[in-house]
């Protein structure tokens, strides 16, 4: 089942939730709608489902316009962030709900309902818990019940709204991999919404990055992470150092930092913003270096080092593999010479670098 979205716009009062969305989702794809809160990703998902109506634009399922169809008629599986299970029903009845509410003529026989529900519960690995109530299950189990309930009506499309948002980190990771396997097994066209870039990059065939009601970039996880098309995408997909720079003849003239590879040197020249991932920053101890180590954080797989340039205008964050850090034997207060393995250039935004070092630090660690 393919999904075609053309010119979707939606306003809530003065707030523009969606502003001319065009997106084509191929049959059997697993798509992530990724963006910060307020980017319109959930609204878009709800419009595909028929839980929300666009002010303009069209939603086509397999080429057939569905804007006139209600959620009931679209035969879509929708999974809510907070599960939305029917808490007065057993797990079995929750899953069977979609079959039982069918008109008598289309309703499967009781034996078939039992068989189908049991098969679905086995699929989501809850075969033994059919007679439990939602209140007796863990968060991860509840979300799998919600998924089984969504799958019970043989949905043409499966939509998941922040499906793992309410779960703790460990369960979230397990469930993520499990959902990927399930998708490969069933092949249902699936769209899920998330604000977690790691989740989107790990799970999806294709990632749609959204910001302020628009699609910022669409592509495979490797391409959106590797070739972000604008500063927003770059910043949203991981930590970043933003550095004011000047390019002449394909070389960084200022600041005095060595850059091994400029990813898009041909496109741009003059005053630019250099975007560098912390893991692309290399530090070498050098008594004549232009910067000083200000902070070292050793927890986690990478050692996080903050260095401050002498002119106080730039605070740089570096992530160094633990083994490399051991070889460097850096200490706070030592002088270093930073080097960038790669950097991406963007046109400088007005006001982008009118910041003091503290704010730059906040920017680079939070985004």
């Amino acid at each position, binding site marked *: 089942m393919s999904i075609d979205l053309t010119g979707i716009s939606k306003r809530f009062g003065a707030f523009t939730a969606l502003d001319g969305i065009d997106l084509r989702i191929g049959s059997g794809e697993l798509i992530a709608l990724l963006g910060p809160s307020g980017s319109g990703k959930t609204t878009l998902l709800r419009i595909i489902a028929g839980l929300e109506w666009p002010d303009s634009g069209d939603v086509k399922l397999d080429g057939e316009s569905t804007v006139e169809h209600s959620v009931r008629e679209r035969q879509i599986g929708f999974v809510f962030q*907070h599960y939305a299970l029917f808490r007065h029903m057993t797990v079995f009845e929750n899953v069977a709900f979609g079959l039982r509410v069918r008109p008598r003529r289309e309703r499967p026989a009781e034996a078939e309902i039992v068989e189908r529900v049991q098969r679905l519960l086995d699929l989501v690995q809850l075969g033994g818990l059919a007679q439990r109530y939602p209140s007796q299950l863990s968060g991860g189990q509840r979300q799998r019940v919600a998924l089984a*309930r969504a799958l019970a009506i043989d949905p043409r499309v499966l939509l998941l709204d922040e499906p793992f948002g309410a779960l703790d980190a460990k369960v979230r990771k397990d469930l993520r991999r499990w959902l990927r396997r399930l998708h490969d097994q069933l092949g249902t066209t699936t769209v899920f919404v998330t604000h977690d870039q790691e989740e989107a990059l790990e799970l999806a065939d294709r990632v749609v990055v959204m910001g302020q009601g628009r699609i910022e970039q669409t592509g495979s996880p490797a391409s959106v992470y590797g070739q972000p098309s604008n500063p927003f995408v770059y910043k949203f997909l991981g930590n970043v150092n933003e550095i004011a720079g000047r390019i002449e003849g394909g070389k960084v003239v200022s600041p005095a930092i060595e850059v091994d590879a400029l990813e898009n040197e041909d496109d741009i020249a003059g005053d630019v913003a250099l975007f560098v991932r912390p893991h692309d920053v290399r530090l070498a101890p050098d008594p004549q270096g232009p910067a000083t180590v200000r902070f070292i954080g050793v927890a986690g797989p990478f050692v996080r080092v903050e260095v401050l340039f002498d002119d106080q205008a730039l605070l740089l964050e570096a992530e160094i593999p633990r083994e490399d850090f051991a070889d460097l034997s850096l200490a706070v207060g030592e002088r270093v010479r930073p080097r960038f393995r790669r950097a991406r250039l963007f046109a400088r935004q007005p006001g982008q670098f009118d910041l003091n070092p503290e704010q730059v630090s906040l920017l680079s660690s939070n985004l």
Partner: protein
Amino acid sequence: MAGALTARRVLPGFGPTMGLTLFYLSLVVLLPIVALALKTGEIGLARYLDIITGPRVLASFRVTVTAALLATAINAGIGLLLAWNLVRYDFPGKRLLDALIDLPFALPTAVAGIALTALFAPNGWFGAPLAAMGIKIAYTPLGIAIAMAFTSLPFVVRTVQPVLEDVRPEVEEAAASRGARAWQIFRKVIFPTILPAFIAGCTLAFARCLGEFGAVIFIAGNLPEQTEIAALLIFIRLEEYDYPAAAAIASTVLVAALVVLLLANWLQARSQRHSEKTP
């Protein structure tokens, strides 16, 4: 539930608060009941049975219970509708309507009774056209039921309202996306969720109807064996200084009310078994 347990641990004072609670309940609720039971005990079983099976007493029970059931049925429907409207829709004057619901609690019941009688009397605003259609309300059991329905209106609304507010819209959306029609969503998803509160509201309303006195006596006409309610009969017996009879009738009404309340509590607990809030 969890909140109450934590509060008990965090805030001191279980001893004094529980002591005060028991003392107050004993003084205000239990003591009169015990006095009533003792008074009833004095008269002996044979005499007791004799009194409460008298035709006038039995008739008053029948009138009271029938009218109370009818009033509760009216309020079950109307109360649910009112709660639904107040929770689901925004409209001008919503807060006024919300405040209006509690009016029967604030109004002296006798005032309500007199007003209703004036309205439904054969020459009243409602009574006249109804009389023309051959329907008589004032001075009939129907009038009793209407008076009872008036004073017990807030119970169903006020118990269902907060629970209905708690029903997440996404639960309904989940049901709709499974293909459920509007009435199926209500019957299979919303109603079971509010059922415990609904039962509680109906029971409270019914119990209140059984005991209603002020509003009813004006509209009832109070014809012995026809439109005379149990509460009035108790009052009449008291005025006649026939204390044993008054005590016998009163204790019977009391036991009936207690049984109804216990039954409702049990029903409510049953339907609530699995309805604890899930995140």
